[in-house]
Each structure stands twice: as C-alpha cells, then as structure tokens.
C-alpha cells in the first residue's frame, strides 16, 4: 500500500534531515519506527502528510490507489487524505472558533465528495460522532468545543484518535501519539488503535519509547538514526531498544 523509495528531504531553506529512506508497508500490517530525538522520525511523518515546511530532495513515495501506484509527492495534503492517508499529529493544533463537530463534518464530507458518495447531514453525523467518541472514552460535550482548545495533552491525543475513527483511513501514521499520555489514556488510545486496525488497513507508529508497543505488537520495527533506517526487525527489536538504548545501533562514521 505504501512504498517509500530512497527518500531524502530537508527543511525548506534548511539542513537535510532524511538521507535515503526505504520502507514498504502492506495492508494489514503494523509498523513501528523508533529512534532517538532528532533522528528524523517526525519529519518522515510530516512529509508523508504533505507538510509545507519540507522539501523532498530525492526518492519517491508511492501509494497504491486501486491497481495503480501513485506518487504522493505530486499530491496536495488534502488529496492524500482523500486517498486514505491519516496523520495523528505529535502536537495537535488548536483551532479556535471551529467546533470539533464542524471540523470533522467538513473533513468527512470532503472525503465523501471525492469518493462521489452522498454527503452526510449534520444530524446523522452527530450520531456517528457520539458512537465513535465512546471508543476513546471522552464525553460528547467535547464535540461542541473548539478543536483542541483548552484540551489537556491527553485529550488532544485522544481527539486525534477520534478523528482517525471517524475518517477510517487506509494508512494511519501516528506521530508520537503515546508521548504525554498518562497510563489510562495510553491504554485507551492503544486499545482504540487496535480496534480500528483491520486486515485491509495499516498503521505506522512513530515513537520514542516502547510503551505503546506493550499494548500493540507491531509486525515490523525499524530503527531510525540520523535520517536513516539503520535496522529492521520484529517486535523483539523494540524490546532490545528498551533494554539497551539506541547507542549500540549507531553506524560507525
């Protein structure tokens, strides 16, 4: 479903961050990318979503649409979402003046329009939201509040998962969704992600710690250091990192 090929990228007008990333994700898989701070994990996540602050300097990102592979690099951020890509933000953005409901309604219907499906009216959509919000253990009152405004760190992260539940993406990229979560929130978020995962979709977890992986067992674990994937393995690799840290994986210069 996703093929990242020799991807290199830098911050616009700034330093290079990624130096040739290769990664393939198939439907039904859960991948985890782990790495120390500053290794380029979040940059990769943002580039997948089309963040405007970065320039791709080499390689490609291919995404399967029907029987075709299309380059995500040619698509705007919203077009990537239409094709089923979702990024749970490391730092979810406050949007004063837009209610959670209005935000998700606009988003949901934009995707339906793209798929040439009829739009859902607000009454029906509210019912859908109330059903989905139970999954992440938040009160329906949050639906009428401005998006993420005055939400706690944990509530913001849960709100990302609510969006994921509503939009039902094919590929969900979770950028450090586990950081800043208390134990209960972590469990709820992890359970929700597991619940939403099927054999038709895929999840890419980006994380600094192994915490989330206590609840979700990835099929593949990749270690990123200095903008490169230096090692790949199964869930045992994550446990090794937990025990030994990252230093032993350093590639000699």
């Amino acid at each position, binding site marked *: 479903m996703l093929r990242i090929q020799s991807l290199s990228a830098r911050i616009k007008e700034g330093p290079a961050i990624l130096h040739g990333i290769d990664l393939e994700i198939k439907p039904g898989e859960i991948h985890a990318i782990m790495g120390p701070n500053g290794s380029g994990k979040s940059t990769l996540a943002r580039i997948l979503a089309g963040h*405007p602050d970065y320039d791709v300097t080499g390689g490609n990102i291919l995404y399967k649409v029907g029987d075709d592979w299309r380059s995500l690099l040619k698509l705007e*951020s919203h077009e990537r979402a239409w094709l089923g890509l979702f990024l749970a*933000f490391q730092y979810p953005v406050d949007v*004063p*003046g837009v209610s959670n409901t209005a935000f998700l309604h606009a988003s949901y219907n934009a995707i339906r329009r793209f798929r040439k499906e009829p739009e859902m009216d607000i009454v029906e959509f509210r019912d859908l939201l109330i059903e989905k919000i139970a999954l992440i253990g938040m009160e329906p009152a949050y639906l009428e509040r401005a998006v993420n405004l005055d939400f706690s760190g944990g509530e913001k992260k849960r709100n990302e998962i609510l969006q994921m539940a509503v*939009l039902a993406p094919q590929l969900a990229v979770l950028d450090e969704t586990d950081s800043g979560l208390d134990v209960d929130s972590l469990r709820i978020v992890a359970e929700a992600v597991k619940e939403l995962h099927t054999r038709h979709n895929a999840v890419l977890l980006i994380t600094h710690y192994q915490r989330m992986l206590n609840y979700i067992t990835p099929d593949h674990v990749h270690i990123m250091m200095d903008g490169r994937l230096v090692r790949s393995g199964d869930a045992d690799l994550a446990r090794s990192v937990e025990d030994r840290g990252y230093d032993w994986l350093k590639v000699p210069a």
Partner: protein
Amino acid sequence: MKTRFVPLGDPYTALFAACNAESQPDWLAARRKGAVERLRRDGLPTRLVEAWKYTDISPLAERALVLPAGTSVRSAMPPNVPFWHEDDLNVVFVDGQFAPEWSNAVQSSEIQVVRLNNLATNPETAPSDMLASALLNAAFRRDGVLVRIPAHRQLERRIHFFLLHASETADAVLAPWLAVAAEDAAEARIAVTALSISKASCLHVPRVFVSAAAGAQLVVSQSQLMNDRSWQLGTTRIEQHRDSRVTHLEAAVGAALARHDLAAVLLESGAEVELNGLYVQREHRHVDFHTWIEHRQMNCRSHQVYKGIVDDHAAAVFNGVVRVHPGASGTDGYQLNRTLLMSREAQVFSKPELLIDNDDVKCSHGATIGQISAQELFYLQSRGIPEAQARHMLSRAFVEDVLFRQKDIRQRADLDALLDRCFPVGHD
C-alpha cells in the same frame, strides 16, 4: 486639511429647526439646544482631532441631508426582517421613529415601555456626551423609547430593538434614541439590530443608553447591518451599579463607514463588564470602534475581546481606553484586539490606552494583526479539507471564536446567521 473642525453647511440650520419644531419634552429641547449650539460653533471634527484621526466624517458637513418622509413604508416591514422572532419582546423603529404597531413589547406586562415624549426627565443623568456623534443624535432626535425592567424580574423573553432604515430618499438622517433601565437584580437579554431595508444612502446616528442597577445582569448584543451606501455614527453608554454584570457583544458587517463609541462606566464596586466585538469588513468599508471603560470604584472587572477580518480595500480601527480612577483598587482589566488582514490594500489601526491612577490593579492588553495560521491550515488540509475551504473555515472561525463566549443561545444563533451572510457557503 488644515483645520481641526469644518463648519456645517447651511442646510443643517433648517433641519435642526424642523426637528426642534416637533413636540418634545423640555429636557430634550434643552439637550438639543446645547447640541445644536455646539455643532454650530465647532462644526464637525477633521482628522486633525485625535479622536477622529482614522475616521474622516468632515465630508458630512457639506452633505445635503434630509429628514425621512412619511410612514407609508411601514407596510413592508416585519416579519420579513432577518432575526425577527415573534416570541421576542420587539421594539421597532422605522427611520428613527418608533413604530408601536410592530412593537409587541408595548403589550407586555413584564416590562414598561415609555415613549420619549412621555418622559418627564432625561434618564441619562450624566453630563451630556460632547462627541460629534452624540451631538448629532441629540440635534436630530425625533423619537425614542425607554424600556424599564422592574426590580428582581428575570425576563424570559429577549427584548429586541430593531432600528430599521427604510427610507428610499437618499441621505435621510435617522437619529433614534433607546434606553434600557434594569432595576435592582433584574435579569434580561437585549438585542439591538440596525438594519437597512432600503438601498438608499442614509446617516444613522443612534444613541443607546443602558443602566444596570445593583445586582442587575444584562446580556446585550448590537448588530450593524446597514447598506454599503450608508454611514452609521453610533454611541452607547452603559452605566453599572454595585455588583451588576453586563455582557455586551457587537457585530459590524455593514455600512460604508461605521463608527461606534461605546462607554461602560463602572460606578460602584463589584461591577463587571464584558465587551466583545466582531467585524467582517470587505470592499471599501470602514469601521471604527472606540471603547471607553471607566473603573470608578473598587473591585470591578472589565474584559474586552474584539476580533475581525479586514479584506479588499476595507479598514478597521480599534481604540480601547481603560481608565482606572485613584479609588479603584482591585481593578481587573483585560483587553485584546486581533485582526486578520486578508489583502495588501486592507488597513488596520489598533490602539490600546490604559490610563491608570491606582497601584493595586491588574490590567493587561494585547493587539495582533496577522494572517491565517499556516499550522491551522495544514491541520485542516491534512484531514481532507481543500485549501480554499480551509481558509474560508478559518477566517470565519477567527471571528466565530468571539461567539463561543456568547452564552445566550438565541443571540448566538442570530449572530451565526449573520456570519452565514458574510461567509457564503462554498466548497472550493
């Protein structure tokens, strides 16, 4: 422009005389006389006068204004007026004249509605406002209404004043006066809607006076939807007594030129006032908000948030004064003005002024002028919302944010509908 004031043209003399010839109580005659003398002596301010630095009303001096004729237009009135609700207590003015036939509030036993001509004394006891806008109202005022809300009454129904501009004659001058006196511990919601039905130009100089007695609680909203040929120079004075609470929200989306001078005077301790404003200005419109909050006594609180969007060649002015008197210890004052600038040609002038004569105060202010946040834009786009729609949502949200502070559901729904007009729905 060298002079600070420009003299009024000759046609004004006849207009003042015509207004003065109508029946009126003695106090109004006296107030009018003072206002006319002042206007004759000084004329109208130019931009050399600090208070009018960004808003030039001096061309009015040469404008051939007329008094609106007749009342025949009234048949075209409500209920086809936006934000008209049958179950509100409606008080309707048409072209500056009270229209009792549309005003169901007169039949209410819960409040008392007194027409200006039947008022023996002026409810505005403070020294007369000498601002040009207020002088013009006093000079041209031909009708008005006082609504009294009895002590301890909790009014279920909203009081809605409509200031309708219906005259098809160009350059009609309309000068309605409305006053609300909330007695001790009374609670009410009040809306004031200034609206052009006509497409002709006019000069609208409404005067609003609100007094909140001890413990009274008022939620007031004022909306300005004048047509794009008209000018509105409004003044509002709010006087608050001990432990009263007033929440005021104004929305300005119309008029070629609109200026509102809003004063809230916290006369006694424990009074709280909240002034919020939103504006959406496009084309060549010009809007100017001057707020004046006066902390006279101890432990009063004031909170102001004004947010707006300025696009095309439009201009917005915000000048907010918080005045803290020497005796006003424990003052808590907050002021914020934020404007979204949507075009290169649009202009914004934001000027906070804190005049503090007491050490024991907590006052803060802020002003920002900016563009749509790139972070917010990306967040929406990453959820499948195309850029144009995202920009539309975020610009509306920028002002909608002010409505999130509005606790009253009907007021909020009305203002939402107002924003629907400003931000027509479209996906791309």
